[in-house]
C-alpha cells in the first residue's frame, strides 16, 4: 500500500540507472562503514592469509607472497544491507580461483567460512567465489584499503550484500556444511542476494 504523501523525491540519482539499484536500496557516493566492534589495525608485516580445509591449513601467505600473486581489477556496484548502494567501486586483489590455483587446491566442499582478524566470520558458497565472482581485495581506488574499510585485505563478493565481503580477512575455510557466520547467527540471511532482498533470515 502506498504511503500517504510519499513520492520518492530523492530517487533521482538511482532512477538515472534503471535496473541497477536493487529493491529497497538508495544510491550514495559516500563509503559508509559498518562494523560490529573497534577497527583492528593490522600491520602488513604481521598479516597472513590462510587457506584451510576444515581445521587443516593448506597454505599460508605473507603479505609479500600475497601481492606477487596475479592481481585482478574489478569495478563492481556494491550493496549494503543497511540500504546504501555505491556504483563503480574500484578494487584490486587476488581472485579466489587464482588463490586456489597457487595452493593447487580443487574446492573440496561446496561451502566456505571467511574468518577475520576481529573474530568476525561469514559464510559463502564456493560457487559464489569462483569464476571471478570473489576476491581478496588489497587496494581500493588505487590505494591501500584503509583500516576502517577492512585493510590490509578484505573479501570482495560484490553480488551479495556487503557484510559477506568480510573486512580484515585472514582465512578462508572450506566447510562440509553451510555454517552460519557472525551476522548470520544474529538474524541476517544465510545467502544475502540483494536482488532477491535477502536481508534477514526468512526473507
Amino acid at each position: 500500500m502506498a504511503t500517504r504523501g510519499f513520492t520518492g523525491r530523492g530517487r533521482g540519482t538511482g532512477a538515472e540507472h534503471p535496473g541497477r539499484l536493487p529493491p529497497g536500496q538508495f544510491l550514495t557516493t559516500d563509503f559508509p562503514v559498518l562494523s560490529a566492534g573497534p577497527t583492528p589495525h593490522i600491520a602488513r608485516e604481521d598479516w597472513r592469509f590462510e587457506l584451510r580445509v576444515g581445521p587443516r591449513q593448506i597454505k599460508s601467505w605473507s603479505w609479500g607472497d600475497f601481492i606477487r600473486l596475479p592481481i585482478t581489477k574489478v569495478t563492481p556496484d556494491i550493496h549494503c544491507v543497511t540500504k546504501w548502494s555505491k556504483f563503480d567501486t574500484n578494487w584490486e586483489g587476488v581472485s579466489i580461483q587464482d588463490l586456489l590455483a597457487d595452493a593447487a587446491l580443487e574446492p573440496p566442499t561446496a561451502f566456505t567460512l571467511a574468518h577475520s582478524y576481529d573474530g568476525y566470520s561469514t559464510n559463502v558458497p564456493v560457487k559464489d567465489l569462483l569464476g571471478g565472482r570473489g576476491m581478496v581485495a588489497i587496494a581500493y581506488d588505487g590505494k591501500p584499503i584503509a583500516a576502517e574499510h577492512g585493510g590490509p585485505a578484505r573479501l570482495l563478493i560484490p553480488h551479495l550484500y556487503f557484510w559477506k565481503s568480510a573486512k580484515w580477512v585472514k582465512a578462508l575455510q572450506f566447510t562440509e556444511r553451510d555454517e552460519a557466520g557472525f551476522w548470520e547467527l544474529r538474524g541476517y540471511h544465510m545467502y544475502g542476494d540483494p536482488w532477491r532482498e535477502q536481508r534477514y533470515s526468512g526473507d
Partner: protein
Amino acid sequence: MAQGALRLVKLVWQPATVVAIERRTPTVKSFFFRLPRALSFIPGQHMDVRLTAPDGYEAQRSYSIASAPDGTERIELAIELLQDGEVSPFFFDTVAVGDEIDLRGPIGGHFMWSVDDGGPLLLVGGGSGVVPLACMLRHRAARRSAIPVTLVFSARTAADLIFGDELRMLRARRDGFHFIPTLTRETNPAPGHRVGRIDGSLLSDALALLPSPPKLVFVCGANAFVETAADALLGLGIPPTTIRTERYGG
C-alpha cells in the same frame, strides 16, 4: 548473553499507525507508533521503515527503537533530520498523526543489552547515536536495576542533547547511573556539562565512575565519532571483544 539463536521466522512488514509526534531537539523528532500486535525486542535493536510511492517505488531505512520494551504495541522511533535525505525529510515535513507506515523488526543481534546481561556498562553516544543507548537506560530504569552505567553523550549544544531532561532526571535517582554530557560547540555550558570532543581523558573519567572495568561498552554515532571513541577505549586498555559499535553514515 541474549544472542545467537538462529531466527528463522520471517520478519513481516506491518502497517503501524502514528499515534504521536514529539519534537526532541531542533533536528530530532520522536514518532510513536502503534503496531498491529505487541513487539518483543531487546534494547539496542532497530526497526526497518518502508515508504512506498504510488508507482511502487520504495525507500527503506533503519531506525533504533528509543522506547523500552514494555510488552505493548507502542514503540518510539527517534528520527534525525538529514537535510539531503529522502526518508527523514518526509517524516519531518509530511508524516502526521493517524498515518500508517510500514515497519518490520526487531532487527540486530549484536548491539543490544538487557539487565539480564549484567554490567558494569559504559555507553558512548554521539548525536542521534544516543537513541539505542537511551533505550537501554530506559529499560534499566523500568526494571529498577542498579547495574552501574556511565553514559558519555556528545552533542553540539545543550539544545541538541536528545532526551537531555530525562537523562538528567535518571541521573538524579543516584542509583548507579552516571551521565556525562559533553558539548562540542558550546563555550559556556551550564553546570554538569563538559566542553569539547570525546577523547581518552574524558573516557578515562567516565570509566573511573564505574566500580570495576565495564563488562560491555556500547559506542554509537557517526563513523568518525565511533572510530575516535573505540580507538581511545583500546588505548585505555579496554579489550576489543567487550566493545560493540554501531555506526551511522559515512
